């Protein structure tokens, strides 16, 4: 069984990392050692596929029997390393290994001109992919947290890859610190769990009623889950910690593709999906997740409307889509919780599955979009869409693949985004129907989701039309990219086109995913298998589907008429209320500004005050004591006249006083 060798999946890229960082320079045969990394990530990919086939055949590696080793133990405190493979892991393995391998291949062309630093680039990319594999294979939260932090490290190193650029160094730092704020919450949540449940192993935490059974109050349980989600807020760039992701565009585009599609930000979604068996015990935390997700989706989409940097548009769209995933996961969880009390229901795992489904599809189309954008940037040498235009003629492959990606993310059938986005909105709507006290909230969230769908279609096609149609606005000689770049684009484009069909192929993606929670959530909630064709029928008969389809089409058409036909000039909006709104959006709601001000004025201000306090008050007190003793010494030393007779006089007077003392007090005893 290949599944028993799954631990090799993260080991391959990490070996690649070690090879590249440690061997002498002359052994790095070609392109800074790229062949090693391509080989290693391909090996991981092949092994991942074999493991996925095992999972499709119903083999999983979960529970206490999975292989593990003790990493650290001190009394009641024990940390272990192990492997956990279920359907969710399989999806993540597919996404990470496929996108990772394609990105590495693409890098050969994209990073060709980098020179010496390529070595560092490939080493860091290999480590990045390796630790992400480690993260998805972990069988307990400590192991996961360790890789989680290492993923953060790699993104820090890669975002700041062009370290001579001040903006890159700053963005890397910001990404690390902001995600670390999330990590603090995650760490606190984990420590609470460890304290109460006594272990962070999935097999025990995912047992039914594990939180209540540990003697946690429901408030503490909810707090721990919200703190856990705090990690995902940082990592997956959810509101209000989402501003690091657009800044993270300072890294090479390949890195952005990896971060957005496969590694960094998907870790947060994975964390939430992985924690599902615990989350369903705390409905309030689930509602919190859904609300944050909905807000993030909407806010990021509005920001994308006015961005002119092509990578920034994509970055905001990623945040927005991640918001969708969180929304679906939260909503789906609430449906399950609600129904845990009311008995079984058809399609219980729909919210969960649609979140994962969207994550998978998003991985393909977002990797595609980023790599296509990278191809464009490679050709014209700028990120600014205002300087692009008319590239469709010279860059046929890039423009067509990017069109497929845009159609997919906009939710136009039959491309992959349509299937998953539709299901995300459908689960939100079901939550409105089923979620009891939260139903009003979910109605609002559903409306926000639909509005986001409209905006997504609009800004994606705004980007596409601005880039590939119309007149060329720069004098750069654009040309199609080399084969190593276009081949990954074509592979990803075909995946973005068809990966949605997983919805109804075979057993269907949803019943496949439902297995992963039905085995862990417990017997009282039977997550029933959803028949793919049945749900297919449901999709095309539901008015919800047509609602989301129509708004997407309207968004697409609006973009077409403004940016292709020029039916309406955007510059007319640049004044008055709309102008102010535009400025607000362009300034990203001043969130980034607020964080900068907070960090620089408040935190740094406090530290300056503390420094002065330290120097003048605490140290001042010490130096004051030293000053006091030396001054009093200077005063007292005046009694040392150097005149021998003074000293003798003092001795004589002292002797007489002693005598007198003896005479007065001891006389009687003589």
């Amino acid at each position: 069984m290949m599944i028993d060798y799954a631990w090799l999946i993260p080991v391959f890229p990490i070996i690649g990392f070690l090879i590249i960082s440690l061997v002498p320079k002359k052994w790095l045969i070609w392109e800074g050692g790229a062949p090693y990394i391509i080989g290693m990530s391909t090996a991981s990919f092949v092994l991942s596929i074999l493991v996925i086939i095992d999972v499709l055949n119903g083999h999983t590696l979960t529970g206490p029997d999975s292989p593990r080793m003790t990493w650290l133990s001190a009394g009641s405190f024990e940390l272990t390393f192990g492997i956990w493979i279920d359907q969710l892991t399989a999806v993540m393995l597919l996404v990470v290994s496929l996108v990772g391998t394609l990105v590495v291949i693409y890098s050969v062309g994209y990073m060709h001109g980098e020179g010496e630093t390529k070595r560092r680039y490939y080493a860091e990319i290999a480590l990045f992919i390796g630790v992400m594999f480690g993260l998805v294979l972990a069988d307990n939260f400590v192991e996961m947290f360790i890789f989680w932090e290492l993923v953060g490290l790699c993104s820090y190193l890669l975002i700041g890859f062009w370290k001579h650029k001040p903006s890159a160094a700053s963005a890397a730092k910001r990404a690390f610190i902001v995600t670390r704020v999330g990590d603090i919450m995650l760490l606190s949540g984990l420590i609470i769990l460890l304290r109460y449940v006594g272990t962070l192993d999935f097999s025990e935490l995912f047992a039914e009623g594990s939180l209540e059974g540990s003697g946690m109050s429901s408030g503490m349980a909810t707090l721990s889950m919200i703190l856990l989600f705090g990690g995902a807020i940082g990592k997956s760039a959810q509101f209000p910690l989402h501003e690091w992701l657009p800044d993270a565009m300072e890294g090479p585009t390949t890195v952005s593709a990896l971060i957005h599609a496969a590694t960094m930000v998907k870790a947060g979604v994975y964390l939430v999906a992985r924690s599902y068996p615990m989350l369903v015990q705390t409905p309030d935390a689930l509602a919190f997740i859904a609300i944050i997700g909905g807000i993030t989706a909407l806010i990021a989409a509005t920001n994308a409307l006015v961005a002119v940097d092509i990578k920034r548009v994509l970055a905001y769209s990623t945040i927005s889509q991640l918001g969708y995933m969180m929304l679906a996961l939260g909503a789906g969880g609430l449906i399950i919780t609600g129904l845990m009390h009311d008995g079984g229901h058809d399609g219980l795992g729909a919210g969960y599955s649609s979140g994962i489904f969207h994550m998978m599809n998003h991985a393909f189309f977002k990797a595609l979009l980023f790599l296509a954008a990278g191809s464009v940037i490679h050709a014209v040498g700028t990120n600014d869409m205002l300087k692009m235009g008319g590239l469709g003629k010279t860059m046929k492959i890039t423009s067509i693949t990017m069109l497929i990606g845009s159609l997919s993310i906009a939710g136009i059938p039959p491309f992959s985004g349509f299937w998953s986005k539709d299901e995300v909105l459908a689960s939100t709507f079901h939550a409105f129907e089923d979620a009891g006290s939260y139903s009003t909230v979910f109605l609002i969230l559903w409306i926000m989701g639909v509005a986001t769908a409209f905006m997504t279609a609009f800004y994606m096609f705004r980007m596409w039309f601005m880039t590939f149609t119309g007149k060329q606005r720069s004098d750069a000689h654009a040309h199609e990219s080399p084969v190593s770049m276009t081949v990954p684009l074509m592979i990803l484009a075909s995946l973005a086109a068809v990966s949605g069909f997983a919805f109804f192929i075979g057993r269907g993606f949803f019943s496949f995913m439902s297995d992963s929670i039905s085995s862990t959530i417990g017997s009282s909630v039977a997550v029933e298998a959803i028949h793919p064709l049945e749900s297919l029928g449901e999709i095309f008969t539901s008015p919800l589907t047509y609602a989301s389809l129509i708004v997407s089409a309207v968004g697409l058409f609006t973009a077409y008429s403004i940016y292709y036909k020029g039916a309406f000039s955007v510059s007319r909006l640049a004044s008055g209320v709309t102008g102010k709104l535009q400025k607000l959006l362009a300034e990203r709601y001043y969130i980034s500004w607020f964080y900068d001000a907070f960090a620089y004025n408040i935190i740094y201000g406090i530290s300056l005050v503390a420094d002065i306090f330290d120097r003048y008050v605490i140290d001042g007190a010490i130096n004051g004591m030293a000053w006091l003793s030396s001054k009093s010494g200077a005063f007292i030393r005046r009694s040392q006249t150097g005149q021998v007779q003074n000293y003798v006089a003092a001795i004589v007077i002292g002797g007489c006083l002693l005598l007198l003392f003896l005479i007065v007090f001891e006389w009687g005893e003589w």
Partner: protein
Amino acid sequence: MLEGAQSFAQDLLSGLPVLSIMIFLPLIGAILVFLAGRSMSIIRVISLIFSGIPLIFAVLLIFAFSWGAIPDGEAFADPQFYEEYEWIPSLGVSFAVGIDGISLPLLFITPLLTFVSILFSWDVDRRPREYFGLILLMQVGVTGVFVLLDYLVFYIFWEIVLIPMYFLIGIWGGPNKDYASIKFFIYTHVASLVMLLAIMAIYFNAGATTFNMMELGDAASGFTRGFQIIAFGALLFGFGVKMPMVPFHTWLPDAHVEAPTAGSVLLAGLLLKMGGYGLIRVAIPTLPEGASYLAPLMAVIGIVSILYAAVVCLAQKDLKKMVAYSSVSHMGFVMVGFATLSYVGIVAGVFVMFAHGLVTAVLFMTCGVVQHHCGTRMIPKLGGISEKMPKLATYMTAGFLASLGLPGLVMFAAEFMTFWAIFNNWGLWLLVPILSVAITAGYYLWALQRSMFGPLTDKIETENIHDANWYESAPMAILIALIALFGILPAIMIDRIGDAVTIILRAIGGG
């Protein structure tokens, strides 16, 4: 295989007075260095050999150390490799040495850091005999402190440490060295005297028959509660200044700013650990009731140190001063860990000391390289240095990441265990010290961004800057390899620490 290694190492060391050798070999080395002629190479080689042999012994000791079986009924740590020689029988003073799990990690980093400091100081040509001789003398003192089991001799070695450090700062220091060295000496000496007072009080209160730590530990049950609290308070002050804890920490940044790099490495890597070691070796097991009465105070001091020092770090413009304050912050973890008076907390505290010793050495070395090669350590004057010094930038990044608690490097396990212990004892108060995780990342990465990354600075002459020399790279590479090794396999140390802590907790009567 591990058992084979253990019995092999035990066979190798059997019959040797290994701890005495480790203490006095550097002394012989120091004398030889003082007597050596003017030849730089002979001086360096002698110092390397005489700090290197104890290092080999220390590595063997890690293998030979036996653990996992706790003897019953002992109220005090059961020392291994025990040696005892009578010295002043009329006062009950003897030269007794032995190690347990708490001494072992610190005993390992003592010769290690001395060895790498000597290597790092390869190009010191100002009065080299005195310089290397004093470093070796310091090794004598610190090794003694970590293995001695007799209070009076312990105190003597404790004071021996001060003298070489005073001269290292005072002779080879920076522009303000006189102020810094005298401040260091007087401040820590006052603390030592308070500690001596407390030790004397314990000695007389237990009947003035012996200075042996284990026997005095057994006598502890006879102390009254009031005496324990007062004596513990005095010891807490004595060790707290040494660690150092806010608000008694201001000697540290001054001393570090002026000290030569090797001096800083030894000061932060070893001398600070003496304070933490004293707390867990002397104060807590001998005065358990005092400890549990003052534990909340210790916790508050520790948490304040963690956060306050981290915040002050953010404002520092001098790289080395920032690293110095970060030491205060990390030693706060030690204090909090001990204050929990729980198994995990104390193990974590000891492990933080070990981890911090390795990490801070790298940090001070990177600061030293920046100073030597760029002529300044001021962050606003630096910038884009990584372009000229890629190796140094790598070491510095690795060191900073280790210090901010990145998993896979040694500090992570230590901090994680401390946080767990804090939550276990004080619940949601955890949310206060855990903030330091973000602040720490903030000041390190910000400093890295401003000094190493971005465009090359024009505020200093950058034409002739070259990368770290081999003797500067090698020590940092060795230490980073160890940081990674103990980060990936922290169990090597943590397993060995455990037994001693169990025995101490038995004395406290808690768990």
